[in-house]
């Protein structure tokens, strides 16, 4: 999470993105989050992580990566496999067999958990990212949203939680390794 972030640039260039050049095009500056707001979001993120325990995924075989988030936002889960191929809402299946179960959007009823599975995972490094493309409650940027991520991989569990701004992609929230023949 990058509080007080420096907006990047939106250009006709690969990966040159959102930002400063557009700043003068309209809108008002908003104050950064207060300590109370930040603490509230962190508590929400922790609660989402705790809720995973209440609804465990079937992770007995392969890899299951789950992203939990609230009704106020549409977040997207990205998992990049050892072939550097990524499964996400627009790439439903990767070359190593990773599959996204469903794209959880604003109109998706709860529990709001997006899930990507690798039934027969390849050994190597996996990267998990979280994007925040849109709000569901009409709030304006930065409108940070809380999330939690859990990974079940061949009997092991990895978890993390955090906060992500609107229109910001946390490319790496978690990385883990699957060894040949196991986790």
């Amino acid at each position, binding site marked *: 999470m990058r509080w007080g972030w420096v907006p*990047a640039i939106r250009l*006709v260039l690969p990966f040159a993105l959102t930002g400063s050049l557009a700043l*003068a095009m309209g809108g008002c500056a908003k104050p950064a989050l207060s300590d109370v707001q930040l603490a509230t979001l962190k508590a929400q993120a922790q609660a989402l992580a705790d809720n995973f325990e209440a609804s465990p995924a079937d992770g007995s075989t392969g890899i299951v990566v789950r992203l939990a988030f609230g009704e106020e936002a549409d977040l997207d889960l990205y998992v990049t496999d050892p072939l550097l191929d990524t499964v996400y809402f627009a790439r439903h299946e990767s070359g190593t067999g990773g599959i996204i179960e469903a*794209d959880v*959007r604003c109109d998706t009823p709860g529990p709001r958990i997006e899930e990507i599975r690798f039934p027969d995972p390849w050994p190597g490094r996996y990267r998990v990212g979280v994007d925040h493309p849109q709000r569901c409650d009409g709030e304006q940027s930065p409108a940070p949203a809380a999330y939690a991520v859990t990974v079940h991989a061949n009997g092991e569990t990895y978890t993390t939680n955090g906060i992500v701004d609107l*229109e910001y992609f946390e490319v790496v929230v978690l990385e883990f390794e699957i060894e040949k023949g196991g986790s």
Partner: protein
Amino acid sequence: MMNGLRFTKVLLLVGSVLGSVTHAAGFQGSVLDEAGEPIVGAMVTARFSTPFQERTVFTNDQGGFELTGLPESTDHLIRVRRIGWHDVRSGGHMTAADELTPLDFTMVRHTDPALVAAQLPANHWYELLLNKLESEHDREQFVRQCTFCHQQGNPATRLQRDPEEWSKILALMARMGAGLDEDLRERVPELFNTAYDPATAVPALTEGWQDPDFAPPPSENVRQAVVDEFQLGGRSSMQHDMIVHPSGDIYSVDMTTDTLFRLDPGVPGGSREWFSIPREDVPLGGVMGLAALPSNSEMHVGPHSLQADSKGAIWITLATGNRLAKFDPSDDSFTIEPLPGGIYPHTLRIDDRDRVWYTIAGSNHVGMYDPDSGQHETIRVPARSFGEAVMLRMIPAFIWLSQYIDLSGALGAGGGEGVGPVPYGIDIAPNGDIWFSQLNAHRIGRIDPETFEVAMIDTPFTAPRRMRFDSKGNLWIPGFSSNLISKFNPETLEFQSYTMPTEPLGTETPYSLNVDRRTDTVWICGTNSDTLISFDTASEVFTIYPLPTQVTYTRDIDFDSEGRVWTSNSNVPAWQIETGIPRVLRLSPRGTPTSEVSGGQ
């Protein structure tokens, strides 16, 4: 300048130890159809080595081919390809020393037109989209904004999706820079879903597909050509630009992994070395923070463009690191040069005093750095309006302010006109003048190299991108969204434009061109059509050279001293490229090279 930063090469001399190359080693044979008739213009490709090199030749009027200059006593995987026929793939073919091994193939016609449609280059599919746009404004905007990362060449880009999914994809693209007018953006989901509906798309693309003149073979002249492709990098790579170094080595910058590659094409299969460009303290995404990186990216400093100076040192723009890098091939060391101003150093050229000139795309500047004196100049170039000029001047204040106040609520959505004029291509005229383009402003500009005074000229076409001078002082400019190249005379200020010949007409997106100044032949990236295209400036005739790999997205061109044409495949994401891995490639227009290595011009 920070001196003495030396970085160890990550890996040396990667490439299999293969037998030596003799011109006589290789394969010869024929490609016939099931009735025994010759198939003219089939592409016969031999793959060898790990990482691989692929060499491709075309069949002649009798269906015959000769694949020569291959490493002897080496296993080869052979692929034969012709639109309308099933690919033939065959492994385990061993070359012998000093002779051509016989090899004949029979090709089988496709019976399913959908499979034929899938063989067509991206521009054929793109025409289906363009045909649905009635307004020239929409068409131009759609081409300029929606085709600068990747083609529509991979089936994954042509899926029918529910409108909400399209909407999210477009929003993500907008955050990566591809902004469209609100109205057009709302229409795009239906546009894609109707254009790519197999029920209508396949018949439209394959009308007359069994006729002899469907996908005709290239001309006899073109069929003399040989294409060599060298695998370079990995599935997260973006081999943005490459150059032919005076030593004969090929250098390529991998923007998404912060890597400089060196390829020695003189070793069978090519030997590869790679060097991690110092990231210093630049975080993932760069100094400005990128809100939408590719998910598999390792880009911190984002090497983008490169050129060699007169002493052989290689200068690189680090676009997201906002600095320059110098690589010294004599000891494989990097020196990093911080920049005094501007945002997003982009394309770079070097003048005859070894001064480094580069466009600064984000903040509408052109930069100059003189390594001898240490002088930096950050030259502000004209904006399109007073308001835009004010906005651009306020960027540093916004950046400073954003440390304390969240300004992201002030972000605009961008739009079809793009945000900012975007200084893009740049070249040095024979008389020393500096010329650059402003992609979104549809202008070119001249900078006096001594006084740094700037003068702007509107182009009579849209999206001037990467341009070059010929030996006579004419400036050749590709119109990325206008399907043309144009010759500009800096003395008379006259433009003469030539429409790209790519079929279907109106579907090419020439990203870049370069001029072989020994012949003044203009070579153009057929970025949307898996081609390289030459233009003979004397006869004003185009020649189209098909390239063998589907989804070959090219952004720059260089030449070796034998007149061979080099480029890199930088489609991003790389997994959309056939085989999923980028390549640098060499087109030898006059046939099999007799010398694998020759320096840059």
